[in-house]
């Protein structure tokens, strides 16, 4: 027994240094372009690109809340725009996303730092141009991570070398926050380096080229300029602000805006232009998001048809499925455009008479025929058709019209209104239409949310070429467009108007409006609000609005216990006509943004590990 014990202790001293077969070594990665591409592909996969499947509230994957690279993520209606007024959706309120999910990607940044440090040792395997291209791509990737951090937290530690433990002491590794100004400046400088090193094309739209670097710079520098200008007017006081970790002084704004303009102009030297393939402006704008050959695309994230886990579920989670298999074979919708978003484009006052009573229409599509083509291509209206089915949503049927004005009618408590309603699309009634609410909705208050709450459905990115059978969860392969030229024009126009370069702003806006089918503006029309509104219209549902209302510091005003409205179609049985009432969406949810949420609080676990990250952002 003792001999056995002695034997065991002796054998435990043997070293097991067989080489692992499942981990790539530096030699293998850096020896060939294929190896590097594999490494870089992993970095792109982890990039915090807010595409279809991004969850701004995080989702608990068993090891914590994460928002990117979720396994088996299909609930695309959990979208930032559905918590802040572009849409109403499954979130109970803005607070569900306002505190973020503790995004802290320093492990991924370390991988990029490691790449940048290690590549030069293997430079002899490649031509000098190739080495530069790889390095440039790494700088772009690193800048993208820091952009995602800065727009959430403000000042965070800038780490550009590989940290090693236990070779370095804990004290050395407990780095301090850099100021917010330093971080945004760093991002700009990284992208300048990337621009110098990257080629005009990397051969794939999923990879960054020199213009992509400038596209990100035009976005990031615009953000920094807004934060400097508007963050100095609307802020929460605290130590972090006093020490420069939360906030940038206002005098820095003009320089940031100019950097955004200059970067946008460099993108303009590239092969990009607004998509204008079709003379039919509604079809054209729809195809901006579906045509793989669009010259507007600067950086995309693709999906892989060979693996369901690498497909998206956009069509299946935004097409109505109130009635089984109506426009989708699986999934179902839960987020719907608000009337407030729609009226950024065009007023819908054509539905009301001068005396306040509802105007009558013969067909549900009648009021919407002359709306801006871009609006028609962004939102589905009653009467539109998809996959051979009609958007026939209605809230109910008035057997006879109500007395009085629309305003009085919608102010009544719901129990006091007398129209037929139903929470089942198949329920019929004894009248002209057959069913009470139509295959696409709408339910009375207190029902589930799998049909529209606002009378509208999202149209952007919906693939109209697919049949109902082809639409299901994990079958979507439409690429996500992360940068498109329209955004660059909008970044440039906004930076222009903030630095009084009105003529350039006018040219940019009119290019976008011409493509959109909107009338051209003149110099006297050009105000900050007009430029912002154009951005809200053009980039609707593309995960910009949440960050825009934050950097403009208007979120706490626009989302001050805000409730949103829809346009509710009804059929009037005894007249055989349709009416449309502007009323509060039937969940009547409250959306409120706290001022402290202009910055997320630093993740508690990181603060505990590294007390040098204090002070936390003001209010936390």
């Amino acid at each position: 027994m003792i001999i056995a014990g002695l034997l065991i202790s002796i054998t435990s001293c043997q070293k097991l240094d067989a080489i692992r077969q499942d981990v790539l070594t530096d030699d293998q990665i850096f020896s060939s372009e294929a190896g590097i591409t594999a490494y870089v592909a992993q970095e792109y996969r982890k990039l915090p690109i807010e595409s279809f499947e991004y969850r701004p509230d995080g989702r608990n994957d068993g090891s914590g809340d994460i928002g990117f690279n979720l396994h088996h993520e299909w609930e695309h209606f959990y979208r930032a725009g559905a918590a802040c007024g572009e849409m109403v959706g499954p979130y109970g309120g803005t607070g569900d996303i306002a505190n973020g999910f503790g995004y802290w990607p320093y492990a991924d940044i370390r991988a990029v730092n490691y790449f940048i440090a290690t590549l030069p040792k293997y430079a002899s395997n490649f031509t000098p141009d190739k080495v530069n291209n790889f390095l440039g791509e790494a700088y772009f990737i690193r800048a993208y991570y820091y952009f995602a951090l800065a727009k959430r937290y403000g000042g965070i530690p800038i780490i550009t070398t590989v940290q090693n433990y236990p070779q370095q002491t804990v004290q050395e590794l407990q780095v301090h926050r850099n100021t917010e100004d330093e971080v945004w400046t760093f991002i700009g400088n990284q992208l300048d380096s990337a621009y110098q090193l990257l080629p005009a094309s990397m051969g794939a739209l999923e990879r960054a080229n020199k213009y992509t670097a400038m596209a990100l710079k035009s976005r990031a520098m615009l953000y920094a300029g807004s934060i400097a200008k508007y963050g100095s007017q609307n802020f929460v006081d605290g130590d972090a602000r006093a020490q420069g970790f939360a906030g940038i002084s206002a005098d820095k704004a003009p320089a940031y805006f100019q950097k955004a303009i200059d970067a946008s102009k460099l993108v303009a030297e590239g092969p990009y232009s607004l998509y204008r393939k079709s003379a039919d402006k509604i079809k054209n704008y729809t195809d901006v998001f579906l045509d793989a050959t669009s010259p507007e695309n600067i950086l995309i994230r693709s999906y892989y048809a060979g693996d369901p886990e690498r497909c998206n579920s956009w069509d299946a989670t935004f097409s109505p499925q109130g009635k089984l298999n109506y426009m989708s074979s699986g999934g179902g919708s839960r987020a719907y455009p608000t009337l407030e978003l729609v009226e950024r484009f065009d007023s819908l006052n054509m539905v009301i008479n001068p005396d306040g009573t509802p105007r009558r229409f013969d067909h549900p599509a009648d009021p919407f025929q002359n709306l801006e083509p871009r609006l028609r291509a962004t939102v589905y209206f009653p009467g539109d058709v998809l996959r051979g089915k009609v958007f026939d949503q209605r809230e109910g049927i008035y057997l006879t019209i109500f007395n009085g004005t629309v305003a009085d009618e919608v102010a009544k408590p719901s129990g006091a209104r007398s129209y037929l309603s139903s929470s089942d699309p198949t329920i019929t009634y004894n009248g002209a239409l057959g069913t009470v609410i139509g295959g696409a909705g709408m339910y009375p208050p207190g029902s589930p949310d799998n049909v529209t709450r606002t009378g509208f459905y999202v149209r952007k990115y919906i693939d109209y070429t697919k049949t109902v059978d082809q639409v299901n969860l994990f079958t979507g392969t439409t690429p996500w467009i992360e940068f498109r030229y329209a955004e660059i024009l909008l970044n440039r126009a906004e930076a222009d108007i903030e630095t009084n370069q009105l003529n350039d702003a006018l040219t940019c806006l009119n290019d976008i409006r011409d493509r959109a089918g909107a009338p051209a503006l003149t110099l006297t029309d050009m105000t900050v609000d007009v430029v912002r509104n154009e951005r809200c219209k053009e980039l609707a549902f593309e995960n910009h609005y949440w960050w825009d209302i934050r950097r403009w510091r208007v979120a706490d005003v626009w989302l001050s216990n805000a409730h949103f409205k829809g346009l509710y179609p009804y059929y009037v049985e005894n007249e055989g006509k349709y009416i449309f009432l502007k009323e509060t969406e039937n969940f009547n949810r409250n959306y409120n943004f706290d001022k402290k949420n202009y910055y997320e609080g630093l993740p508690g676990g990181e603060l505990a590990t590294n007390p040098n990250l204090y002070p936390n952002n003001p209010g936390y």
Partner: protein
Amino acid sequence: MKLKIISTFLLGMFVLLGLSSCVKEDNYNGPDASLQGNVFEDGTDSTVQTCSGNFSIRLEQLSWSSTPTPQDIPIKIDGTYQNSELFSGHYRVSIHGGAFWPIDPVEMDIAKGSKQDFKLTPYVDISNFQAQFLDSNALTLTFKISAPIDGIPDINLIQPYVNTTRIVGPGASIYDFSDQMKDITIPAGGKAWSDFTDADKTRKIVIPNLIRGRIFYVRVGVGFNNNDKSSNLSNIIEVTVPQQ
């Protein structure tokens, strides 16, 4: 046999030795301290008009860490607060949030039965608050607002709060009779106190369509464009809606 006993004994000893290094005695006290108190309106004997969520008492345990994680005790609707499950130690105690003029934090030791009162001055004083049924089931509220001290933040909200219980205020009210009745002439971005005319400071709100025969509790609030968008509140009045 003897060898077996000895070797088993030795084995047992080594196991115990190994395991004992994993055992650490927890000889810290549990949270047996408490802190409670009243928040008075400065210059009066009564507690401030407030409700849950209006502000909180912030504790930072300085004896544990120089960068302590803050811990908040919520204020109750009667203007008192209490937490009887605190760890004893040296704390910085301050008022967090709320529409009151800031006061200096208090550093104190908290142990069993500690007490700390505060005196706060609201930004706006709501006085002469009356609630009457002048016309069937429409409730007429009248009140006056004044600012004891100059330099208050912009006002961005004046609205009534109506609820079926005595717990009434922001976050505890019936939407149709409260948020829907807010004064829409006050911009969401805020209106400066200097822009309030004397007529603006004498206010009237009419809440129509209250349910007959029911008892409601009602108060009014003035909200500010400050860090946490908090409000000053009036006293609470109980009303019974007349049957006819």
